[in-house]
């Protein structure tokens, strides 16, 4: 089993938005040295319209740009449900600006000129965070799909297994013979493609408690 097999399997892509060409070039080069792909954008509007929302990676936004400020752009992106972690870059950050950025959901707030360690650390951590987030999302979707294939009785049995009951106890609770319970249990493990109880609980505990 592989929970990520249905998600985008592309290598991480960093979107870098800054109105200054020299800054774009140099930061892209620097980020490239750790093997990450970088797509640079000069115009916030164009970026909003055409960047790939499915890509895995992170967004780096300059706060001070003509037309639209990085903070406003941050608001818009969060509103649109963009899930890539966002790193803000600024030439003259204030505590207030920083607080606002974190409140809205930025993961980092860096001051220019930024040191390579700090920037690369932040970018790599953001990418890892995004990969994990996407994996969790994919796993969730995968588990949900499997769960729907269970019969009514099998779901009842699953709920009680997750609660920690033994076959005997489940049989008593559902007025079934322990043998029937054992059959349901085997079918359920097969349908959900899990081979031990730990797996089962990891993927389905939340689904079971959420279902009516």
């Amino acid at each position: 089993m592989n929970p990520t097999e249905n998600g985008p399997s592309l290598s991480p892509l960093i979107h870098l938005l800054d109105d200054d060409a020299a800054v774009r070039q140099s930061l892209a080069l620097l980020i490239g040295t750790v093997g990450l792909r970088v797509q640079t954008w000069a115009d916030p509007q164009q970026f909003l319209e055409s960047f790939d929302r499915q890509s895995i990676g992170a967004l780096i936004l300059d706060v001070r740009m003509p037309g639209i400020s990085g903070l406003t752009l941050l608001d818009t992106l969060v509103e649109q449900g963009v899930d890539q972690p966002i790193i803000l870059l600024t030439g003259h950050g204030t505590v207030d600006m920083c607080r606002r950025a974190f409140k809205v959901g930025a993961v980092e707030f860096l001051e220019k000129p930024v040191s390579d360690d700090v920037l690369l650390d932040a970018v790599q951590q953001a990418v890892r965070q995004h990969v994990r987030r996407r994996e969790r999302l994919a796993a969730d979707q995968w588990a949900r799909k499997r769960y729907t294939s269970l019969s009514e009785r099998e779901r009842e049995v699953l709920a009680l297994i997750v609660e920690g009951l033994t076959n005997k106890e489940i049989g008593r609770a559902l007025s079934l013979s322990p043998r029937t319970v054992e059959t349901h249990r085997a079918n359920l493990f097969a349908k959900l493609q899990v081979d031990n109880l730990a797996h089962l609980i990891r993927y389905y505990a939340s689904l079971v408690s959420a279902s009516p």
Partner: protein
Amino acid sequence: MRSRHRTFLYGFLIWLGLSLAGATVLTRAELARQQEAFTVQSNIAYRLLGQRLAQHDAILQMLALLQPPVQRIERLGALEAMFPQVMAIYREESDIAWANPQWQQAQLQSLKTERAVLTDVRLAQGRYVLLAAAHPASFAVLLDLNAAIAWDEWPFRRNGSPVRVVLEWQDQQWVISPGLDHAGPVVFQSGKTLASPSQRFQLHTRRVVSYADLPWGQVALFALASALLVALIIYVRKQREQTLRAQELLRIGQVGRLNSLGEMAAGLAHELNQPLTSVLANTQASLRLLQEDPPDLEPAREAMAHSVEQIRRAASVLTRLRHSLRESGLADQCYPLSLTQVLEESVHLLMPELERHGITLEKRLPPHDVDVVGEPVALGQIIHNLLNNAVSALGAAQISHPRIWIEVLPRQGRVVLTVRDNGPGIDPQHLDRVFEPFFTTRSDGLGLGLSLSESLAQAMGGGLTAFNDPMGGAVFALELQRVDEESS
């Protein structure tokens, strides 16, 4: 200009109000004084006339008592001399009727009332007869009131007195003085019956106060004084307003310059930050590329080329800034002006501050005006900043007898203005940093005042230096271009 008109209108209204109030108070006081005088004079007249009438009763009583024979009446001339109002004395045996039936009637009345009785009254002429029945003979005296009044004691002048004085009896009246017959806003009057039981005359006094009697002179004087007062107040207020306005102008100029300086600094920071960001990123990327095994030379070389380009860009930002500062145009706005005058104005503006801190200011200025090349507002700002600096240094150090010395020393082609204080002086460590922008030792200071002053001084072709006086205290020396008498 509108506000000026309004000031004058308000001033005029205040003056009008003051003058009216003053006129009312003065007029009332004058009227009260005149009424008092009138009452006192009327009472005196009443008393004097009353005394005379009492004398008449006394004369008749004396005659009735002494019963002088008819023959001896001639010898009563002494009596007439003593009482000039007695014109004649008549005697009649009590069993013989008086020839005049009026007198006879009075005789009967006198017998009944046992006192002297008036008869044959011709008050218009001031004449009447007083008759007393007695035994064996009755007596009568013919009296003339014209002679009864002792004019040297009388409170009213005989002619031309403003008070009308009239004696009345039944429907007859005797005008003692006619008074002035004019119209007027106020009338005083009094009427009293004289105290004599035999001669029950009424004394009426009446005075019309004419407009001419009102205290016009005092009112005019008061109006003039209040006009002067109002003018003085307007003048003082205007002076204060002008001082405030001048201070405000200076402050706005200062804030404006500081603001533009701050904005420039922010813009400069941004313009330098971008190339710095790029240079740092490129250089660090190159380092990483070179550390690879094998080193990735081509991209590293490219990155270094980009860095060089960005360093040039940063340098050009600074060059542009220097040009724009040089071309800020203050030098073009400079013209010959009196340093002494600008100095006096700046000192005047800071006087309240100096007084508040108890600072003694000593000026050593040349006896004549010293003309320099400068722009008045900028020059004023420099001097203001230097003085202000000294004031805060003295205030912070809490010197017991704080002093500031200002000296103007004309040199060949130059003028040096020094501002010295007896504060703690400048920390020698800070001496070469005081003109640095954003350098300050004050917690509330921006650190731009001295830096700005130095820039302004240089823009006017002068300079500003700071040092510590060997005797203690900080000295700031502002050097300016002097305009020589011969060349101007």
